[in-house]
């Protein structure tokens, strides 16, 4: 049974269609990365799954529960880690966890709090107010709060957005631990590296629908080949190189100050300048080619 099943889901906000006929299955026990640019509909999809948004059309099921009708029962079995830090900052670390253990009807609140503190590595700080914690500690606490009831399904909404690389790496190891333990995870992100490192499968979302989905390596092979050539130089030269590459049917995308010729292994003579930097194709190449957006 799929942990999440979405069929033809549509969600509009006035004239804007945030989710546009979305079909999505998340099998049990995998980590699916929902990758897309800002405004792709990822957060709206998350809100639809927690019953905080009502679809205009389509069918949704989470853990066997029809949504939004049976959303409360579904929420009891899923954990949510939000994009924004919404901890109670004046309250102690342990009270933050205890409140959510009660909201999730956990039978042994004390044991759940101890487990959450251990997971967040905050046992020593349990009686400190949250506003005394560092950014990384707060993020770990937020994650532990979402897992306080040992959920079958976890929704991670941009779990590391706005964090510095060190804290991001710390969280990745925590999330990877959950994934290895067999918990089903749906993780929205617009960070390529996050999706590559954590997701068993990546679903690329743009303008409210899934435009590609596979294991990261398969996505790269299918859409970007094996190698990408990055060419640096003045704009006139880049325009000339782009023209030649495109004449050979190669796809070219901007890459900051350079251009990236995707699938460069297929290039004929003269298409790739000698000073080009050849590297392995990445999910970022796929992302930019398919969404037209610069990756982060």
């Amino acid at each position, binding site marked *: 049974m799929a942990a999440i099943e979405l069929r033809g889901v549509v969600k509009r906000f006035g004239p804007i269609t945030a989710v546009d006929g979305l079909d999505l299955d998340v099998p049990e026990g995998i980590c699916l990365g929902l990758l897309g640019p800002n405004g792709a509909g990822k957060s709206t999809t998350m809100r639809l799954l*927690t019953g*905080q948004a009502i679809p205009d059309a389509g069918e949704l099921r989470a853990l066997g529960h029809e949504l939004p009708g049976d959303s*409360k029962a579904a*929420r*009891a079995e899923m954990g949510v880690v939000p994009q924004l830090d919404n901890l109670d900052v004046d309250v102690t670390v342990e009270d933050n966890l205890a409140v959510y253990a009660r*909201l999730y*009807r956990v*039978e042994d609140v004390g044991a759940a709090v101890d487990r959450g503190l251990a997971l967040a590595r905050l046992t020593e700080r349990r009686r400190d107010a949250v506003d005394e914690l560092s950014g990384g500690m707060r993020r770990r606490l937020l994650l532990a709060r979402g897992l306080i009831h040992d959920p079958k399904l976890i929704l991670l909404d941009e779990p590391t957005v706005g964090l510095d690389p060190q804290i991001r790496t710390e969280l990745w190891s925590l999330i990877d631990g959950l994934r290895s333990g067999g918990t089903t995870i749906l993780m929205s992100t617009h960070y390529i590296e996050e999706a590559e490192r954590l997701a068993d499968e990546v679903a690329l979302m743009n303008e409210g629908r899934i435009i590609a989905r596979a294991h990261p390596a398969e996505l790269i092979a299918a859409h970007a080949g094996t190698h990408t050539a990055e060419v640096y130089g003045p704009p006139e030269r880049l325009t000339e190189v782009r023209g030649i590459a495109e004449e050979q049917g190669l796809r070219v995308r901007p890459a900051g100050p350079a251009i990236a010729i995707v699938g460069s292994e297929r290039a004929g003579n003269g298409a790739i300048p000698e000073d080009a930097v050849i590297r392995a194709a990445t999910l970022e190449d796929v992302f930019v080619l398919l969404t037209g957006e610069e990756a982060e």
Partner: protein
Amino acid sequence: MRTATTAMRRLEPAAIAGVMSREVANFRTYWKGTTFSSVLEPIVYLLAFGLGFSATLVDEVNGLPYVEFVGTGMVATAVIFSSALPAMFGTFVKHRFQNTYDAILAAPVDVEELVTAEMLWIGVRAAVYGCFPLIVTIGFGLNPAWGMLLVPLFCFFTALGFAGFGVAMAATVAKIDQFNYVTALCITPLFLVAGTFFPIDGLPEGVQVVAQLNPLHQLVELVRGGAFGFEAVDLARFAFLLGFALLTWRIAIKRMTLRLID
């Protein structure tokens, strides 16, 4: 570890208790300041109005010493200021600035339970704070009476009503500064035309009729009934407060649902 296998139904006590436990955890961090002002304010008002007016302008009102008249009326003032205002500002801040409700609604809690819990917590708190002016007035010479034991109950239901009003307002305004209109156009008139500082039977007839629809006025009369003796009409006053609480509860749930669920 697993969660209790409770059937998911509407208005679950466990969900309401969970939301209230969050309020209690937060209250433990700021109760001193709130309680200090709730005790001090009636003392200041009693000194300013009660002793000041009775020494210079008013000796008695409706056969009551002015200090006792104001002191019993101040219960209503304490209730509205510890219910409507925290409900308005607290709800707005938790929703717009702290994103607290997003986190709560991601748990198995629905908007009806969330609003009910918020109102109950404010009601309980205001029921306690509403008693302070009465206790202070006893210190100024008011004789204790058995009927006063019902005052927390009257305060609780009035506060529930104003908490519902405050939550509904928080779900309606677009910006926090729009609460200035609510305060100026609703709360201040209700507070002034409640019969706290002067009897409303001296007001123009039209204003008297409007004042009868003021829940604070009904509370003032009930508190005075508790202190000086109830009348049959007090049952109707209590029923009015119950109706007010019920009405604002449903309106608050409807407004918050529109605000919180896309």
